[in-house]
């Protein structure tokens, strides 16, 4: 083989791998929207499985409460600590409360809670459905005239989407409480004025935009987890891969869509 040929084949190789990667990305996006579309389609068709919805809502909502609550409370505490140290330099300590409540409700509580849930729930959705796929349990559902999207995916996606806003609402409260506790106990802030400042600049819109975000993130992370699991191939190793990439992809998509959502919801 001449040097020229080697070079050409090297270029072709690079192009090939770029092509394959981008094809893979398109495939991934296609699967995401396939699952999303099928989920919406089957949500409004009988039978409605109330018991399964409830079970999944407990699994997502109640079981995630400790980790989401802790995350948010410590975020509020750190936020108060950091802003206090900064604002102190230009004697604006009075605004710590506003910064904590605004940044928590608008941004930090929804995003951090969703990332935690992507790790906790998104991964387990992918592992669960992936295992069912590779052991032919999903085929068995089809064979028993049960649509797996309806039986498995709808309650899981539905429960995650429905449970994220209340989780984030609780996270908001705990985060604000964390900031309050630190400011009052460690920084010597006046409890009454701190409380006043917390709500002085806080609009209903700030809270509701955060909760809308939370619902959208819940939808995204659960559809990602389910689509990763649903299309798993390659045995136990494939399940492992699906689980990891459900968390990675879910988190990345949450952060990217966070930007655009913030732009839309201002």
């Amino acid at each position, binding site marked *: 083989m001449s040097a020229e040929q080697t070079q050409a084949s090297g270029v072709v190789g690079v192009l090939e791998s770029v092509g394959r990667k981008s094809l893979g990305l398109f495939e991934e996006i296609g699967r995401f929207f396939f699952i999303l579309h099928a989920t919406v*389609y089957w949500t409004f*068709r009988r039978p409605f499985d109330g018991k399964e919805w409830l079970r999944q809502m407990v699994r997502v909502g109640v079981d995630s409460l400790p980790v989401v609550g802790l995350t948010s409370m410590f975020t509020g505490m750190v936020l108060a600590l950091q802003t206090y140290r900064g604002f102190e330099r230009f004697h604006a300590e009075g605004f710590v409360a506003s910064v904590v409540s605004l940044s928590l409700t608008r941004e930090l509580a929804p995003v951090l809670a969703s990332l935690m849930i992507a790790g906790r729930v998104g991964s387990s959705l992918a592992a669960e459905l992936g*295992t*069912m796929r590779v*052991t*032919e*349990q999903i*085929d*068995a559902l*089809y*064979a*028993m*005239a*049960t*649509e797996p999207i309806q039986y498995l995916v709808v309650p899981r996606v539905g429960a995650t989407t429905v449970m994220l806003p209340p989780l984030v609402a609780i996270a908001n409260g705990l985060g604000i409480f964390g900031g309050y506790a630190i400011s009052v106990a460690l920084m010597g802030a006046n409890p009454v004025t701190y409380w006043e400042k917390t709500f002085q600049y806080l609009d209903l819109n700030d809270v509701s935009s955060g909760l809308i975000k939370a619902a959208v993130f819940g939808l995204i992370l659960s559809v990602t987890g389910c689509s990763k699991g649903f299309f798993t191939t390659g045995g136990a190793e494939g399940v492992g891969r699906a689980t990891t990439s459900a968390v990675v992809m879910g988190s990345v998509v949450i952060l990217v869509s966070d930007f655009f959502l913030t732009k839309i919801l201002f």
Partner: protein
Amino acid sequence: MATGERGESGRAAAPPKIAVIDLHKSFAGREVLRGVNLEVEAGESLVIVGGSGAGKSVLIKHLIGLITPERGHVIIDGEDLTNCEPARCLAIRRKFGMSFQEGALFDSMTVFENIAFPLRRHTRMDEAAIAARVQECLALVHLDGTGGKATSELSGGMRRRVGFARAISLQPEILLFDEPDTGLDPITSAVIDAVIVEMRKQLDVTMVTITHNMQSAFRIADRIAMLRNGQITAIARPDVFRSLADPYIQKFLAGEPLEEEVA
């Protein structure tokens, strides 16, 4: 798309329960099915045999629409399963019961719940009637008393029998069994055969069974089909099948090695 009467000469007047027309399927560029044609009459028990990896499982999964072919059609009672609305597909699948080669039991449920699953999904039976039917099915496959077990506690042969019990629990019109007797001792295997033979007596049950066990193939079949190189190379009544001149079939029946290898 042509559905309904196909009006082939020489066929019985009744349309076939299952018609497979020119089915093609490949995986990663490797052709597994290369134009399978097959008709199964209502009430018939068809056995499909063929070498390991010949595509028998792939074929039987096409029959119930678990795999979409690249080309060809699967017609169930005149309706094309390869080309239908999702909701309609589900309705057609309600006619089926299928047992999978590896069991495919729901591991989040007990043995009892697995067998009760189709009953709970598709009938209005009360819990007592469901329990009675599940016990009956478990007794049929000699697994009485295992209803409360988790599926992970079962041996391979037990899993396969639970899968078999789950397939028949709803008494569907069409039954597909993918190697129901592999890995079973001869006596238990004969038990499964007896259940199949018993069901064959009911005129309205159509069965397609895959097996490697020629003894049981001859016991349960109305016709035996050979799948080889992606096509049905022979299909005949058991007594005729036994005396077919095809050297591959003779080797297959005798369990002798083959000189020229399968592609």
